[in-house]
């Protein structure tokens, strides 16, 4: 589990999962898209509390390895300002067979989205901005976020 402000290079990360016992490799990449809930998105800003994001991310990965009996799994999450099309998160899983690799990869990305202390702020083309998932928790301040989580 790694939090980084540098661009993610999935081809390089994949090499760390190479294993002679592996018959399958499944990966997931989350990309920055240009629209969310009708808003034209200019860029996204990710923030993480790195110590606990890494700790909790490792717990999620260990859970996936144990639950689905895969050989290995990794995750890297970007922070900072990201432009449209950039990779925000990468998950890679190697295993003996494809079924458990697909399941473990899905489990990791789903859990990471709801458990790790990571936040994203959408900057819209119209100049507004908003923290994703925070539409109901703001009672003051200059908050315009009314869009749910993306992918």
């Amino acid at each position, binding site marked *: 589990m790694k939090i980084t402000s540098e661009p993610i290079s999935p081809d390089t990360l994949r090499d760390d999962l190479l294993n002679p016992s592996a018959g399958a490799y499944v990966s997931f990449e989350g990309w920055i898209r240009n629209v969310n809930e009708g808003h034209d998105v200019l860029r996204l800003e990710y923030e993480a509390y790195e110590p606990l994001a890494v700790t*909790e991310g490792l717990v999620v990965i260990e859970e996936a390895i144990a639950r689905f009996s895969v050989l290995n799994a990794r995750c890297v999450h970007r922070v900072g300002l990201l432009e449209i099309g950039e990779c925000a998160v990468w998950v890679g899983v190697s295993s003996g067979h494809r079924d458990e690799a697909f399941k473990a990869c899905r489990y990791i990305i789903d859990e990471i989205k709801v458990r790790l202390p990571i936040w994203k702020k959408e900057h819209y083309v119209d100049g507004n901005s908003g*923290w994703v998932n925070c539409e*109901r928790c*703001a009672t003051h*301040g200059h908050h315009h976020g009314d869009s749910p989580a993306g992918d």
Partner: protein
Amino acid sequence: MIKNLTIRYFALFRENAGTGEEIVSLDAETAADVFALLKDRHGSEEPTGHCKVAINDVMADWDHPVADGDTVLLFPPVAGG
């Protein structure tokens, strides 16, 4: 009982509070008490959705007790991925 606590705010909570960290004295028993007593700082009535709390860098439940000298980290709804 009044406790001296270090509060750390993140993302939207930091923007609302106007600071990432402050030391406060609160009559609080649990993390939920801290959240409620500081609602005018972080801007949220209750810890809805995926709001989370950590005490001294360990994820905690909202009913976890707080002690004098603790650092309480208040996380607004998370949105990784």
